[in-house]
């Protein structure tokens, strides 16, 4: 059985509405609202007084509710953390890679420390910069 389109009843059968659902008769509703607010005033004042005496009402929200409410942020943070972890793993030298042999120079180290001639000079020999570069590149290979 489907309830999508139940056939409406003839309008003349229907009782009068308590008030139009949308628009119309705003004065009536304004009056009702004013009367209600007037009647509610003492209780609102009492609540306000109590509110001043005590800390603001705290809503005990379970952590998983908060997590669920902010799931997009949580998923984003998790993805960011995973990406950062992968980046670190790729950049850092793997512990399984063999240590550099003594007496060899890597071009990376050379670039970090200075010119090829300066490195060569650090070993105690004067050198032409271009020749030193060629020698060091040959050693690195």
């Amino acid at each position: 059985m489907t309830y999508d389109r139940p056939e409406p009843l003839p309008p003349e059968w229907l009782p009068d509405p308590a008030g139009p659902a949308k628009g119309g008769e705003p004065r009536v509703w304004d009056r009702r609202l004013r009367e209600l607010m007037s009647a509610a005033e003492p209780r609102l004042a009492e609540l306000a007084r109590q509110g001043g005496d005590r800390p603001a009402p705290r809503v005990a929200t379970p952590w998983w509710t908060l997590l669920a409410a902010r799931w997009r942020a949580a998923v984003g943070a998790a993805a960011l953390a995973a990406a950062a972890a992968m980046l670190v793993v790729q950049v850092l030298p793997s512990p399984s890679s063999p240590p550099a042999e003594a007496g060899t120079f890597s071009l990376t180290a050379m670039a970090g420390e200075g010119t090829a001639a300066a490195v060569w000079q650090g070993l105690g020999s004067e050198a032409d910069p271009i020749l030193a570069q060629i020698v060091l590149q040959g050693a690195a290979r």
Partner: protein
Amino acid sequence: MAGGGHGFDTMPGGDVVGTPDEFLARRVQAGEREAFAELARRYLRPIHAVVGSFLPEPADVEDAAQETFLRALEAIEGFDPDRSFAPWLYQIARNVARNRLDHRRRWRTEDAGDDLASASANPGTSMERTEIRSLVDGVLAHMPDKRRTAFRLFDIEGYTSAETARLMGISEGTVRSHVHHARRKLRTELEPLLGGEEGR
């Protein structure tokens, strides 16, 4: 209704417009007047409709609607803002209306005296319509509460099934089911009595 834009608003309410009901309720717990006024703006009409589905007399409906909000305000400290505000208010309205109904013991649908006294140039038509509506009221009075309220909100007051569902705390499918059964019941009961009056 889950926030501001649910179609129940009757006038703007400053910085509270668009604020979810539950946030407003939390502010009412701290005694904030404007938050309560905004909730009243949003729900005064639907609550009128809810209590109107129980109580036949307009004066009774008006009193019951106001009593609903005042009771809600009395109980607001016990309201859990993690839950939906509208069904909570709806339950209060229902209880208020039922209490009043129990007090009166029975429906009083024959309140048309004043209307008849001021009837227009065609009193026959007015009488006929009044009688039809009395019959409808009689059938509605014997329906389950939720069915009657859903029918009232949807078919008489013109709220959408989504608005009705949200207020009553039920699904839209259930609202449509209630409306469907209410219409069918009214047709079954009234068509033999009204004959050609069905109108369509």
